[in-house]
C-alpha cells in the first residue's frame, strides 16, 4: 500500500439524488483502494445525505457555485490532503468507472499530466444529437489550433490529473463552463494532455447542464473564454485563484 499512489475520485453533484449512490457504489466496486469525494454544489435535494449513506466523503458547498467552483474545491481538497492522482467523474452516471484504470495507466507511465476520456476516438462511438456533435467538433478544432495538440472531446468531464495538474487547478480553475478552458490553461502552463477512448452513457436521471436554448450562448462564451485564457497573463502557481 505504501508504494501505491494515493488516488482520489472527485464527483461533482448538483441535485443528483437519483444517481449519486449508484455512481459511488460503482466506483467502490471497481476501485476499492480509491478515496471518494462528492462535492455537493448547494443541492436542494437529498444528494448530500445519499452520498453520506454510501459512505463517501462529502464536501458541502454553502451556495451553488456551478461546475467550475465545485470541481475546483475538489482539487483543493486533493492538494491539501496530498493525493497524487485525482479523477473527475460526473455525478449523473454517464461515465463507466471501469474505465478509470485506463486513465490512471497513462498517468502512471508519465505520458501526460492530465488524461481525458474521449467519446470520439476508439471503438466507442457516441451517438449524440447532430447539433451537439457539430458544436463539440467546432470547439475541438479551435482548441486544437490554440494548443497545437489534437483534441477530440473538449467537453468531456471524465478526467484524471497528476499532482502537478492538481496543484495548478487548486489555485487556478475556470468557472461557468470549465472543461474546454482547462485544456488551454494546461497548454499555457506547459502541462501535457492526452486523450484515451471512453464510453459515455446517456444520462439516467436529471437534466444535462446544457439545454438546447443555451447551446448558442454556450458556444459563444466558451470560444471567447478560451481565447481570453490564451491571451491572459500566464497564471502563477500561488495565491487564491479567482
Amino acid at each position: 500500500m505504501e508504494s501505491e499512489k494515493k488516488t482520489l475520485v472527485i464527483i461533482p453533484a448538483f441535485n443528483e439524488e437519483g444517481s449519486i449512490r449508484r455512481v459511488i457504489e460503482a466506483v467502490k466496486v471497481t476501485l476499492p483502494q480509491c478515496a471518494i469525494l462528492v462535492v455537493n454544489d448547494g443541492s436542494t435535494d437529498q444528494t448530500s445525505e445519499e452520498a453520506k449513506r454510501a459512505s463517501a466523503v462529502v464536501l458541502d458547498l454553502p451556495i451553488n457555485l456551478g461546475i467550475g467552483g465545485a470541481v475546483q474545491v475538489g482539487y483543493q481538497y486533493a492538494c491539501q490532503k496530498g493525493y497524487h492522482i485525482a479523477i473527475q467523474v460526473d455525478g449523473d452516471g454517464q461515465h463507466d468507472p471501469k474505465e478509470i484504470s485506463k486513465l490512471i495507466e497513462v498517468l502512471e507511465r508519465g505520458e501526460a499530466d492530465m488524461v481525458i476520456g474521449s467519446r470520439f476516438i476508439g471503438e466507442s462511438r457516441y451517438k449524440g444529437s447532430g447539433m451537439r456533435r457539430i458544436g463539440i467538433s467546432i470547439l475541438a478544432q479551435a482548441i486544437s489550433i490554440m494548443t497545437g495538440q489534437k483534441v477530440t472531446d473538449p467537453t468531456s468531464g471524465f478526467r484524471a490529473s497528476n499532482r502537478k495538474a492538481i496543484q495548478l487547478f487548486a489555485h487556478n480553475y475556470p468557472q461557468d463552463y470549465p472543461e474546454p478552458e482547462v485544456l488551454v490553461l494546461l497548454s499555457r502552463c506547459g502541462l501535457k494532455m492526452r486523450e484515451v477512448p471512453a464510453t459515455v452513457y446517456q444520462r439516467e436521471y436529471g437534466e444535462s447542464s446544457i439545454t438546447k436554448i443555451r447551446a448558442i450562448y454556450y458556444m459563444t462564451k466558451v470560444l471567447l473564454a478560451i481565447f481570453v485564457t490564451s491571451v491572459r497573463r500566464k497564471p502563477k502557481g500561488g495565491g487564491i485563484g479567482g
Partner: protein
Amino acid sequence: MLIKTQIIVGALSIILLLFTLEMIRKGRLREEYAILWLFTGTAVLVFSLWPEFFLSKFFSKVTGIFYLSTIVLICFFFLLLIVLHFSVVISKLTGQNKDLAQRHALLELEFKEFKKNRLSLDKPSE
C-alpha cells in the same frame, strides 16, 4: 418652457439627494458610493438652478459645447462608466464569494472530521 424643466429636474435631484441620505442613514450605502451619488445629486441640482450658465457664451467658449444635447451625451458616458465600474466590482465580488464558499466547505469538512475523532477518543475515558 425652461422653468418647467427646471422644476422637474430640480425636484428629481432633490429626491435623489434625499434618497441617498436615507440610504446612508440606514447604512445601506458604502461611503465611496455615497460620495459619488451625493456629488451627482448636487451637480444635477446646480444645473437645474442655473441652467442659463450652460446656455451662456462664457460656458460655450470655455468648454466648446454649444448644444445642450452634448451635455446629455456627457452624462450618458458618465453613467456608462459607473455601470462598467459596477461590473468590475461584481466580478471581483463573485470571485471572492467563490473563494469563501470553497474555504468554508473545506473547513467544515475538516471540523466535522476533527469532532468525530475527538468524540471517539473521549468515549473510552467516560
